[in-house]
Every structure is written in C-alpha cells, then in structure tokens.
C-alpha cells in the first residue's frame, strides 16, 4: 500500500487548516483550523508508523491528541471569557497583548 495518498491528504488538510488560521477572524473557526492542522499532522504520523512498521508514530499521535484535548479546554475557556467581556469572538479585537 502506497503512503502517498495519505500524505497528500494530510498535506491538503494541513493547508486548509493553515489558511483557516490565517484568514478567518472568528476565534472559534481559527481554533477549529488549528485542530485541523494537528489532525493533519496526526495522519502523517500514523501513515509513517504504518510505513515503517513500528509504533513510534502512533504514540506521538496519541500525545498530540492529548495535548490537543488539553488545548481545547484552555483555549475554549479563554475564548468564552473574551466573548463574555467583549461581546465579540473576533481574534483581531483581542490585540491587547502588546506594549
């Protein structure tokens, strides 16, 4: 089985995710795009694990999923809090983190 289709799919997903992060203003959408990028990476890891016939890539994928879950918890909490205080979910509005 050739790994190429999987890798191509992974690349497409990653590109979609990256474009989403760069272009969309809505924080939730940007967030989902990040998840998409992470999952694209997971797909590539799993593919390579399969290709090499060992479990290393699978393990990393699990790690990524755990981190992604943690990130979602924290990230969503922040987004909700920002939305509550500013009535907006646009990432461009939250530009206070500068001197």
């Amino acid at each position, binding site marked *: 089985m050739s790994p190429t289709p999987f890798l191509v799919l992974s690349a497409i997903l990653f590109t979609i995710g*990256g474009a989403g992060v*760069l*272009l969309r*203003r809505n924080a939730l959408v940007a967030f989902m795009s990040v998840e998409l990028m992470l999952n694209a990476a997971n797909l590539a890891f799993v593919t390579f694990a399969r290709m090499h016939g060992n479990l290393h890539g699978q393990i990393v994928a699990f790690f990524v999923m755990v981190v992604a879950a943690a990130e979602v918890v924290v990230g969503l909490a922040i987004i909700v809090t920002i939305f509550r205080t500013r009535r907006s979910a646009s*990432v461009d509005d*939250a*530009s*206070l983190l*500068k*001197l």
Partner: protein
Amino acid sequence: MSTYSALTAAVTTQAEEHGQAVAEATGVFSWTWLLIAIPLLGAAILLLGGRRTNSVGHLIGTAASSLSFVVGVVLFFAMLGEGATERAFTVPLWEWFNAGGYEVQVSLLLDQLSMAFVLLITGVGSLIHVYSIGYMEHDENRRRFFGYLNLFVAAMLLLVLAADYLILFIGWEGVGLASYLLIGFWQHKPSAAVAAKKAFIVNRVGDMGMILAISSMLAVFGSSAFDVVFASADGASTGWLTAIGLFLLLGACGKSAQFPLQSWLLDAMEGPTPVSALIHAATMVTAGVYLIVRSAAIYDLAPDARTAVVIVGTITLLMGAIIGCAKDDIKKALAGSTMSQIGYMMLAAGLGPAGYAFAIFHLITHGFFKANMFLGAGSVMHGMNDEVDMRKYGGLRVAMPVTFATFAMGYLAIIGIPPFAGYFSKDRIIEAALAENWVIGACAILGAGITAFYMTRVMLMTFFGSRRWKQSQPPHESPPVMTIPLIVLAVLSVVGGAGLLYVSAGIVEWLAPVTGEEHHDLPIPLAAIIAITLATVLAGIAIAWGMYGRKPIREDVPAGNPLTVAARRDLYGDAFNEAVLMRPGQYLTRSLVYVENRGVDGAVVGTATAIGGLSSRLRRWQTGFVRSYALTMLAGAGFVVVAMLLVRLP
C-alpha cells in the same frame, strides 16, 4: 665648571682616606632610639589624652623635648670619648619588610653628622618649647600645639637618624605632616588652612623626587640602605648617579623651599611664630641640605648633579634675599631671609667635599640666629597684639629692651659682622664658592650685601624711628619664659660661630669622617675676600640706613619700582604657579569631568540607550494580531523547510 673633573679625581682618594668604620651600637649608644621615642610618646600622650591633659600639656611637651636633649648630650659626650673615626654606630631596631628581595631594616645611624643635627633639633627645639609656653598661653588648644611640636621633634630626629633612605623618608613625611598641622594650627582662618595645604602639596612634588630616587636606588643597588648604596656607588653608571642626585635634589628643593618649589615657605608664616622659628627656619627646612650632605657618596660621583645643586642654591639665595627686601610683614621678611640662607647652604653642599662641612656649619649657626630672630619677632607680635606689619612698628627698642638686644645679636650674626656666628659660617661658604667659580662667588657676596640691606631694614623699621603704633596700651616686654630662650639663643648667635669652629678640633674636623674634606686654593688672598665681603655688607647697611633710617617711614605702602613690586609678589612665583599649573589644572579637571560624564560614561549609558531604542523599534512588530503572528510562524516554518531542502540537496 671645568674644575669638576679634577675635583672628582681628588674625591675618590678622599673617600678611602676618610672612610670610617660603622659599628653596631653597644652600651649607651644602643639607647639612641630613646631620642625619638621620648618625644613620640609625648605626642601620643598629648594628642590621645584629650582634655584631661590640658592643664599639664605644655609641661609634658617641654619635658619630653628637654629629656630628649639630655639624652642627646649624653650621647654626644659618649661619642667624644670614642676615636675620631670610630664615631659611627648603627642601631638596628626591627625589620620593616622584605618583599621580592627588597629588604628594609628600621635602623638608626648615629654618627657625627646626625649628632650635630640631634643637638640642634633637641636643643633649639626645647628652647622653642619653653618659649611657646608663654607665647601660646592664651590659646585654648595649647595642648594640641605641644603635641604637634613633639610629633615634629620625633619625626625630625627620625629623619636625621635613619640609616636607610626609606626610613629617612618616613621622617621626611612626618615633619611634613607636623608642618602641615602647625601651619594650619589656627584652622578657622581660611588663609592658614590654604597655606598648610599648599605647603603639603608643594612638598609632595618634592616627595615625587624622593620616591623616584629611592626607586632608582632599588633598581641600581637593589637596596636603599645607606651602607649598601654608599659602598656600591662607585660601581654605578654616572647617568644613574646623576639621575639619583637630581631626584634627591627635587626632594630637597621641596622640603627646603628652594627654587622652583620655594613658593610655600612665605605662606607658611600663617602658622604660630614658634613654629616658624623651629620648623620653617631652624630645622625642617634645612632637611634638604642634610639630605644632600648625607648623600655625599652619590654627589661626589655625579658632578652634573652637583652643578644643579649649586645653581639651585645660587638662584634661591638671590631670590630669597630680594623677596626679603620688599616685605612689610616682619615674618615674611624673615622667611625670605631663610630661603636665602638655605640657598647658601645648598650652594655649599653642591660644592662637594670642599663645602659639605661649611653647609652644615652654616646650617647650625643659622639655626641659632634665625630661631632667635623669629622668636624675637614673635615677642614683638606678642606685645603688639599680633600685628605683623612693620610699618606699624617703630621705636620698640625702648618698650622691649630684651627683645631688642637679643634681636640685634641675631641681626649682627646674620649679616656676618665679625665675630658673630654668621661671619664665620657665611664667609667660609663665600670662600669655597669663589674657589670654585667666580660667578657663583660673586653672587654669594652680592647676596651677603642684600642680606645686610633687608636685615637693616627690618631692624630700623621695627626698633628705631618714630613710634607708629596706635594701640591704647603701650607695647610690653614679654614674660621671662619667653625672653630666657631669646637670651640663650642670642648668646649662641654671638659665640656659636667661633665656638663651633675653634673649640677643640672644630666642626670641620668633627664632620670630616662623614663628609670628607678638601682644601681649596683661593683665587685671591683670603684677606681680600673678607674685605670685599665686609665692604659689600657695609654698603648694604648704608643704603638701608639711607632709605629707612634717615627719613621717616611711611605708614601707607609706597608704589615702589617694578623690582619692589615683583619682590612683594614673591617674584611672581605664585602667579607663575597659578598660570602654569593651577589654571590649566582646573581646566583639565573640569574638562575631564565633562569627558567622564559625556564620553566614558556616555559610551556606557549610550550602549544601554541604544539597546533600549532598538528594542522599542522591534516592539512595533508585536502588533497583537494573532493572525499576523500566525503568518510569521508560517513564514518561519516555510523558511526552515526551504533551508533543510537546500542543505540536503547536494
């Protein structure tokens, strides 16, 4: 000075002939350290004892000094009991330090030369202590004054008794400190404080010479102990010996107020008068002469350095005399005279073995008569409510008969009327100078004439003429505690010269084992020299009488001719220092402060500011927009990928 080469040849044989053995002290001589320890202890008691010793301070001080004199006399007679060339003793005390092979021993050397100084310092010193009891009676800090005087005596004795140049330098600085403290004794007067500081700093310039001289000795001989240096001197190159001689001369110029470091002495008259008598006339200022005579072994082999000593002495003797002519302040007139007389001693010391003994001889007689006259001036001031302007004196011989009589003895001695002390000592110097070089000799004779002029002027303005004082109570004679030292010194001014020269073998023979001796051929008969000198002196007196004796003295200061004006301003010595050293120095300091703040520190602060500025520029990149950060990350990731591909391609 072509005669020098011949002279040097003569000297090398002299050194062998007149060398004397130096033995380690035994018996009474091993107590030499007491000479220094007693006044030092006195100083410690008086300065640390606080107010408790206020009531007896002056007695402790005087007792310490006198006790030291007694020890000196005992040692002197013990020394007389030794053979003529077995009178040098070393007293090793403790090892000071030994660093990198440079070893310095704290040890004393008591020989004929230092003995002469010991007696002068403790003798005249004790008389001045006694005098000060009366003079400083009403001063609230009299105890401190005596403490400083004792400190001075101790330091001066260390100076003349040291057996190592570095130990000598301790005494050298010690007397400088005592002089600083005593000139500035009345600290509440800004002029006194400034004069004290000036004296110290000018002396420090001389100290540079001392330090470099000792450093050179270390470089050349590996030691600064007298015995090593003197014994190895003839192995050193003439260049180095000349350098050492010139460095020592610089030191001597500072301490002895010789040209070009003379400017501090006139200001030093801000100190109490006994200080002027003891430190700035009789003892401390002659330390330079002692230094040069002590370093005979070096100067004997460095004719160029000796020439420099002679020139410095000659310039100063004329300069001091001219300044003395124009001063209306009695103490400053005497200070100018001191400069001039020390110029004579320097001149004599620069003549080599032919003059060393005469330099010391004149130094001692000068110690007698100049201390006498300074104390006399102090007595006058004491009676005149501390007035120092001679234009406000006049006719004091009636009001102060004892002061007048004693002052007159000093006067006759300094101008060199036979048989007073100065005649013997000064004429010997003039003879030696003439034998050496007629220009120098002529200057010395001219100096004698000017001396006669200004001293006559002082006499006439102070003790003769109309009474120009206006105080309600007439001036009174000083109490016996002040007049007795005056009388003793006056007697010494009369008989001191002949006594030192002719009693027993005389001072020249006494000093010969240390300094060597040499007889010179006079270019003209001795009688002619004496006659010429006396004629010059009488001319000086006559001119002074014509100017100040015949006509009344004006109370305001006349304009005077340019020379008088120059002399009043110390021949522009201060103006020179101010223009050449002080103002550029101030400018340099100010500009350096500017350079420091703007340049050196500016570079440091500038670096910090530049980094701060750069970071505030870079900060603009931090827009706060998440998406632009994401774009930057993407670009960065892309860059990394491209870089990796590029590296892997080949």
